[in-house]
C-alpha cells in the first residue's frame, strides 16, 4: 500500500453501499458498508488457547473434576465448557447438554442471538401498535412473552448470533444498548444508592436530583457505552418468577455481597444441592460486575479498549471486531497505555491469574470438604432442621467461589477483589465444616 491509497482510504471510509435498518439483522448486509469491521467480526470463529482463557471450548468439568461435586444436582454438573467466540454463541447453546436435559425458557436467547425483530413481532402480535413510535414498547412486551416461551419454540424465532444491530444504531452507527434486561437493570442500579464512581453519567444523574428516569442511551458517555454494550450480556442473571423474566439482580448494587443480599431477600435459589440439601446460587459470567470493582473501570478503561482495541488499517483506525482474549493481541490491547514489552505484560497478567487460581483451588477444596462433611452428617441421621446453619454457610461459600470462577478473566478484571471474595469463600466453607462436625458429635 502506498501513500496515495491511504489518503484515498481516509476519504472513503464513510461511503455507504447499501441501506441498513432496524430490521437488518444479517451482518453480511452491514458488512457491505463496513467491510473491515465485518472481517474482524467473522474472525470470532477462530480457535486459540491462552493459559486461562482463549477460544477452545474444552470441557471444564474434565479439566477440574471437583466441579462435578460442586454442581451436584444441577445441569452445570453435566456440561460446562470454556466460552469461545461470538460466532458460536447460538450454536453452542443449541448443542449444550444443559438445554437438552432441562426444559429451558426462551429467556436463554436474550444473550445468545440477535433477538430484536423477534421481540418486536411478538410485541405487535400481543397488541402493541405496530408503528415506529411504539418500537420500544413492542420490544419490551415481546421480551416478556419470549422469555416465558419454551426454548424450542422461541428458538425458531431467531437465526443469528449477536449482530451489528444489537450494538449499533443503523442510522448513525452510534453504540446503543438494546437488550431489555439490561435496560431495566441499569435503570434499577441507577436508582439504588450503590456507589458507581466508574460510571460518571449515573453519578451525574444522581447528583442532579435523580430527575425522571436514568436512560442509558441518551445519558451515558461514549466511553461508558463502550462497556455497556458488553454489559448487556456479560452479567450475572436469574429468571424471575413464573414468567421466567430475565433479570439482573442489581437492586442493591453490583458487588458480590449486594447481589447475595438481594437474592436472600427475594428468597431465590438456583437449585438444591444434591449432597447437602443447601439452597445454592449459581453465578454466571459476572464480567461486567467484576470489572466494575477493578482499577481499570475506575480509570475509565472500557471493555472495548481491551477486547476491541483500535487497530490501524491503512490510513484509518478501526475497532477490532474480532472480540477475543486481549492476551492474543497484547500490542493493540495493552501497549497503548502500558509501555512495557509484550512478554512482560503477559507475565503480569499471569502472575495475577496464578494467584487467583491458587486461592480458587483452596476454595474448591474447602467446599468439597464441606459437601463431604454435610453429606456424612445427613447420612448419619442429623435432621435437616439442625443442618440449616451449615447449609446456609454452604450457600454463602459456594456463591463466592462461583462468582470468581464463573467470571472469565481468572481474577484479572479486579485482582484484589477476586482474592477477597475467595478468602471469604474459604472462611464460610470451613466454618460450615465446623458446624457439621459439631452436629455430628452432638448426635453421637
Amino acid at each position, binding site marked *: 500500500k502506498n*501513500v496515495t491509497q*491511504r489518503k484515498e482510504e481516509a476519504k472513503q471510509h464513510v461511503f455507504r453501499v447499501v441501506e441498513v435498518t432496524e430490521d437488518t439483522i444479517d451482518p453480511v448486509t452491514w458488512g457491505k458498508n463496513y467491510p473491515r469491521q465485518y472481517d474482524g467480526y467473522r474472525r470470532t470463529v477462530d480457535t486459540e488457547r491462552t493459559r486461562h482463557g482463549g477460544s477452545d471450548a474444552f470441557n471444564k468439568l474434565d479439566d477440574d473434576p471437583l466441579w462435578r461435586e460442586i454442581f451436584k444436582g444441577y445441569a452445570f454438573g453435566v456440561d460446562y465448557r470454556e466460552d469461545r467466540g461470538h460466532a458460536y454463541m447460538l450454536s453452542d447453546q443449541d448443542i449444550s447438554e444443559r438445554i437438552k436435559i432441562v426444559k429451558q425458557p426462551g429467556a436463554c436467547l436474550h444473550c445468545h442471538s440477535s433477538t430484536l425483530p423477534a421481540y418486536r413481532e411478538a410485541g405487535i402480535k400481543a397488541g402493541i401498535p405496530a408503528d415506529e413510535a411504539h418500537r420500544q414498547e413492542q420490544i419490551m412486551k415481546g421480551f416478556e412473552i419470549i422469555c416465558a416461551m419454551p426454548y424450542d419454540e422461541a428458538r425458531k424465532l431467531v437465526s443469528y448470533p449477536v449482530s451489528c444491530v444489537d450494538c449499533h444504531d443503523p442510522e448513525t452507527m452510534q453504540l446503543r444498548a438494546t437488550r431489555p434486561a439490561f435496560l431495566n437493570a441499569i435503570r434499577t442500579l441507577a436508582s439504588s444508592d450503590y456507589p458507581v464512581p466508574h460510571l460518571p453519567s449515573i453519578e451525574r444523574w444522581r447528583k442532579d436530583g435523580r430527575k425522571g428516569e436514568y436512560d442509558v442511551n441518551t445519558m451515558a458517555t461514549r466511553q461508558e457505552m463502550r462497556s455497556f454494550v458488553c454489559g448487556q450480556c456479560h452479567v450475572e442473571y436469574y429468571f424471575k418468577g413464573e414468567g421466567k423474566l430475565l433479570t439482573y439482580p442489581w437492586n442493591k448494587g453490583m458487588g458480590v455481597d449486594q447481589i447475595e443480599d438481594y437474592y436472600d431477600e427475594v428468597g431465590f435459589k438456583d437449585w438444591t444441592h444434591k449432597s447437602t440439601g443447601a439452597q445454592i446460587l449459581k453465578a454466571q459470567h459476572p464480567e461486567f460486575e467484576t470489572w466494575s470493582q477493578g482499577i481499570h473501570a475506575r480509570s475509565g478503561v472500557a471493555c472495548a479498549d481491551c477486547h476491541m482495541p483500535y487497530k490501524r488499517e491503512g490510513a484509518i483506525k478501526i475497532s477490532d471486531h474480532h472480540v477475543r482474549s486481549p492476551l492474543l493481541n497484547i500490542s*493493540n490491547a495493552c501497549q*497503548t497505555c502500558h*509501555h512495557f514489552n509484550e512478554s512482560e505484560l503477559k507475565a503480569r497478567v499471569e502472575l495475577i491469574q496464578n494467584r487467583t487460581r491458587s486461592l480458587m483451588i483452596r476454595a474448591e477444596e474447602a467446599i468439597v470438604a464441606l459437601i463431604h462433611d454435610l453429606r456424612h452428617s445427613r447420612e448419619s441421621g442429623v435432621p435437616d432442621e439442625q443442618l440449616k446453619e451449615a447449609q446456609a454457610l454452604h450457600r454463602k461459600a459456594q456463591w463466592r467461589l462461583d462468582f470468581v470462577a464463573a467470571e472469565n478473566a481468572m481474577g484479572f478484571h479486579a485482582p484484589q477483589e477476586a482474592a477477597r471474595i475467595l478468602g471469604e469463600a474459604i472462611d464460610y466453607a470451613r466454618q460450615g465444616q465446623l458446624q457439621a462436625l459439631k452436629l455430628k458429635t452432638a448426635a453421637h
Partner: protein
Amino acid sequence: MLSGLNSFTVFLCCCIGIFIGLCSYTFYYANGASYLSNDPKACVNCHIMREQYDGWQKASHHAVATCNDCHIPHELVPKYFTKLKNGFWHSKGFTLQDFDEPIRIQPENRIILQKNCLYCHGEFMSLIATHPGNDRQILDCIHCHSNVGHGPAR
C-alpha cells in the same frame, strides 16, 4: 554462477532503486521537505504522528516547546544528522508499513529527549545529578513525567 550473481545484483539494484524512488515519492507527497523545518505541522503531515500532534496541542508544553525542541538535538550537526536519520526511518516505516504499533520511542532518541529536558530545566534539576545516557546512574525524567509532551496516553 557468475550470471546468477549478476542477475542478483541487478535485482538488488532495482530494489534499492525502487525503494529510493518510493521514499522520494513519500518525501515529496508527504511534504517531506517540511520535515526539515521546526513547525510541528511538519510532523503531522504524516498522519501517523496525528495522535502526538493532537496531544501536544493540549499538553503542558504546547506554548513553550515544539516537537523538535524535545526530539531533536539542539546542537547544529547532531540536529541535522538526527533529522536525516529519523527522516529516513520514518519514511521507510511509513512507506513499507513495517513498523510495530503502538509506536515506541527508540532508546537513542530517548537519550536525546532527556538531554533536551535538561536543556531547558537543567538549572532547576541542578541539585539532582541526572546522567542522561548512563544506564546505571540515569534519573529518567520520563519515569515520572511521560505526559509532558502529548498529555496522558489514556
